[in-house]
């Protein structure tokens, strides 16, 4: 590609000034939690785990709990014991086949003894029970599109609303002669959204090009991730609003041909 570029440089040099070059920025916030499972996946994993429980070797509790300890006693107390075999008795569901306290014909449920639950205990206490944070946040409930805390399981993309009322990715015109695409995008982002933002531009190579206004105006997209801080829209002439949106929301917000250009660049997850 480089070699061919050098060859054709002279021939296209005359055209250089005829087009306006913009650098666009696809700024994403990567998912914070693992992707949501589909119904099929959920049920399949459930089936597999049930099978695994049925086929697993008997849990060697004596390996984990030393004989005669309190922990062992607590563990044994929590277990449910299978029906034991007695001679001369008819078992309609089949004669029990028990080894090491396990019914070999069915699955083994290992029940962990419950710790005392007291959520109100202070955070400093090390032995407090583990209570996971919810996967949905306040922003999800209020439907706040500008929050970085919405849709934790999805990748969010920054979209801006320009003065004509159209949504687009942040786009900045290359004004100086020696301006570079990615640097222009980064400085542009900071003038628009304030200095309190930490981003990482993956590469200076543009990932897509979009021509609008009959091809007189070309936007080269640069991919970038937001790592910290926040986008705070400053007073400006071009954009009036911003939003952090998932791929399907992006599709609803922007024009079809514009979306088709960036379709493959946006993550489904």
């Amino acid at each position, binding site marked *: 590609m480089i070699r061919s570029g050098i060859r054709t440089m002279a021939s296209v040099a005359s055209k250089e000034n005829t087009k306006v070059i913009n650098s666009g920025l696809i700024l994403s916030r990567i998912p914070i939690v693992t*992707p*949501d499972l*589909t*119904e*099929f*996946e959920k*049920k*399949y994993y*459930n*089936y597999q*785990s*049930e*099978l695994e429980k*049925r086929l697993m070797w008997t849990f060697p509790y004596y390996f984990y709990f030393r004989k005669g300890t309190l922990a062992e006693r607590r563990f044994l107390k929590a277990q449910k014991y299978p029906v034991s075999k007695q001679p001369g008795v008819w078992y*309609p*569901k*089949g004669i029990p086949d028990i080894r090491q306290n396990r019914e070999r014909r*069915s*699955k083994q449920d290992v029940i962990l003894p419950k710790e005392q639950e007291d959520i109100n205990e202070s955070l400093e206490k090390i032995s407090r029970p583990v209570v996971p944070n919810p996967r949905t946040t306040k922003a999800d409930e209020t439907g706040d599109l500008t929050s970085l805390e919405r849709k934790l399981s*999805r990748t969010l993309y920054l979209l801006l609303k320009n003065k004509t009322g159209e949504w687009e990715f942040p786009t900045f015109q290359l004004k100086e002669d020696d301006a570079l695409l990615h640097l222009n995008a980064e400085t542009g982002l900071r003038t628009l959204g304030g200095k309190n933002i930490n981003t990482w531009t993956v590469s200076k190579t543009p990932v897509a090009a979009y021509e609008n206004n009959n091809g007189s105006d070309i936007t080269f997209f640069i991919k970038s991730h937001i790592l910290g801080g926040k986008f705070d829209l400053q007073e400006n002439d071009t954009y009036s609003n911003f939003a952090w949106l*998932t*791929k*399907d929301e992006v*599709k609803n917000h922007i024009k079809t041909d514009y979306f088709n250009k960036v379709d493959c660049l*946006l993550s*489904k*997850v």
Partner: protein
Amino acid sequence: MFNRSFSLSSKSYLPGVWSNFNSVRSTSLSIPFKPTKDYILNKTAGSKPPSLKKLSNKIKYQSPEGLDEIFKLSYNYLENNAKKIYDKLESTSDLKTRENLLIQAEINNPEVQYNFQYSNKLENNPNLIDYEQPIYRYLGKKHWESYSQMLLMQRLETLHVIPDTMPTLDPKAEVNVRFPFSTGLNLWIEPGDTLSSNTTSMEPSIKIQEYDLIDTTKQLYTILIVNPDNVDIENDSYYTSLNYALTNIKLSYNDNIVDARKFTNLKQNLLVDYQPPVPEKNAGQQRFSTWVFRQKDIMNNENILSKYANKFKSNFNIRKFAEYNNLEAIGAHVWRSEWDSNVANVRNIYGMPQGRVFTRERF
């Protein structure tokens, strides 16, 4: 939409392609026994498999947990894929591609799989395994190739049936042989079995199962049974005889057992009457190989008889015969015969002269 979605169109395609039976989908693609079908497709909690007969066994049995829920989703997913293939089928007219699409559309159907895996593939019941359907032909071929075909080829090679009769064989149809008329038994013989002369005293019935896509209304078959081990005492060698020859036999995918009932016209179908194996004492084993050919066109038996009749018994060349009549070998079978005390009886019934006796040692 873009979220990782599992497309379920059970709503849009009720009742689903796999429960539609029409000209394209025959009823053999469904399980005829209703309780089994219900159990597989719409199992309710607590119901037990109908293949369990005793009540006590039913109480004892537990199907795996979580299977019911995931099965419904899986079935809908696979049925949806099948629906797409059936849609594609409507716009194709090429027979080969249609056949392939029909196979692809049904291969994941649990009903088809159940029918095929748990019913007799040899004595097939067309309500369960209907070889008219491409999918059953495909499954049948795979099943045949997994064992029986390999066994046949091994026996043909180790017994040197190839190249002693035909040069080689590219097996395309499954051939099975049994002798119901002589014994009253319902047993299929394995290639290479040594059979008593009593068993083989009457003609075999031969099952020819085609798996390829052919025009069954036109295709004709020739069946030859040859014995390359007749003693040629003058040359101190052996010669081949033709022991049974059937021509112009018409078969279908399901009705394909060849016996006297298949003869529409005795003269056109029966070229050479059955000559039972009557090995002579100390002359070693004789290999009786059954060859099945596809014909290119109708054979004129009178012509052949006038030309070759004298050669059938004394020195038959099966290669030349096949070449002359444009025959394509598609299947074979072999059994072995040896002298036993019943040979004299068989010779007597057939009005043959007494057998010769040879020295036990070779010189």
